């Protein structure tokens, strides 16, 4: 059974022989969560990756200095740090993580996130019915809000959401089918 997050934080703070492995494990666990937060709020893969590095660096420094008051809630600490750093990045006031300190973050924190096969995605989108295709493209490619899509397609906002939920599920199944066929 794997050690809880809190145990990793305590090992890092204690500076024991296991501290380095604990740092690597903490980074491995949280890098995907910080990356998703970055993608959602910064809308850019490179900036999301920068966020991962900056947040992990800040959290590791806090853990080493024993500044994480409640190790049981290190997930909240990670989220709070992500919010602060992302806000500074949006404001343009965030310092770069720097070359020196980056070396202290394990190099293998990038868990090779899934990238959709674009050609397969185009094919899957073309298999959606007209309304579903319009809703997903207006929602994600043109970033139109649901109420605007509803007005444009003469349907209710609730209906836009239902169509979108089903369409993304259909695209997921379609892409998974492509992957299985390619395997």
């Amino acid at each position, binding site marked *: 059974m794997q050690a809880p997050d809190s145990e990793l934080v305590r090992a890092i703070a204690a500076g024991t022989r296991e501290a380095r492995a604990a740092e690597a494990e903490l980074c491995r666990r949280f890098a*995907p969560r910080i990356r998703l937060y970055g993608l959602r709020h910064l809308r850019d893969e490179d900036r999301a990756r920068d966020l991962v590095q900056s947040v992990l660096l800040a959290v590791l420094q806090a853990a080493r200095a024993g500044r994480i008051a409640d190790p049981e809630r290190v997930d909240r600490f990670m989220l709070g740090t992500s919010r602060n750093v992302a806000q500074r990045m949006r404001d343009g006031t965030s310092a770069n993580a720097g070359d020196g300190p980056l070396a202290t973050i394990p190099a293998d924190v990038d868990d090779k996130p899934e990238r959709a096969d674009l050609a397969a995605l185009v*094919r899957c989108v073309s298999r959606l019915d007209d309304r579903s295709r319009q809703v997903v493209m207006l929602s994600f490619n043109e970033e139109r809000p649901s109420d605007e899509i509803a007005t444009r397609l003469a349907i209710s906002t609730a209906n836009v959401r239902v169509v*979108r939920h089903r369409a993304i599920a259909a695209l997921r199944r379609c892409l998974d089918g492509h992957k299985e066929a390619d395997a």
Partner: protein
Amino acid sequence: MTCPDPIAWDTLVDYWAADLDPTATDDVEDHLFGCPACTAAAARVAAITEALRAALPPVLSRARIEQLRTRGARIRENTFSPGQRREVLFARDADLLIHRLAGLDLAQADRVDFRITDEATGDLIAAVEAVPFDPAEGAVYVACQRHYGTLPADTVMSVAVHAPGTPPRTATYTILHRFE
């Protein structure tokens, strides 16, 4: 890796569509940071939504093409007249092929729709309503991207021009793609 109280698929889709209120957004993020299983589920949604977001639309404005060119994209343009059928080569040194579908009377147009079908089967490949157009140019610009290489190569592109008080007028162009 399981979650006793997983975030619903619908909520994750709304989250990535930025269609949750701030409190619900915070709730999702609180959960995700404490839950590797739901993080994995959120990543499966994000792989699709973020690819859709990043995808270049199939029809671009002239301004967007110039912006891409300024950023260093290697763009080749081909002009087609209505009814024309011919081959185009996607050369190895090009990032983007632009098909300039010309000969359109767009002076009175209030909306232009675009469809692309497989010439052999008639199957729909893509359809986009209300594409960008410039009335003065009399053309729309289709961005053929290298990852389209696995789609049917021989295509029929249809442009439907809508103007108030008149039935839509459709022009077709048959474009046979060859990739280097």
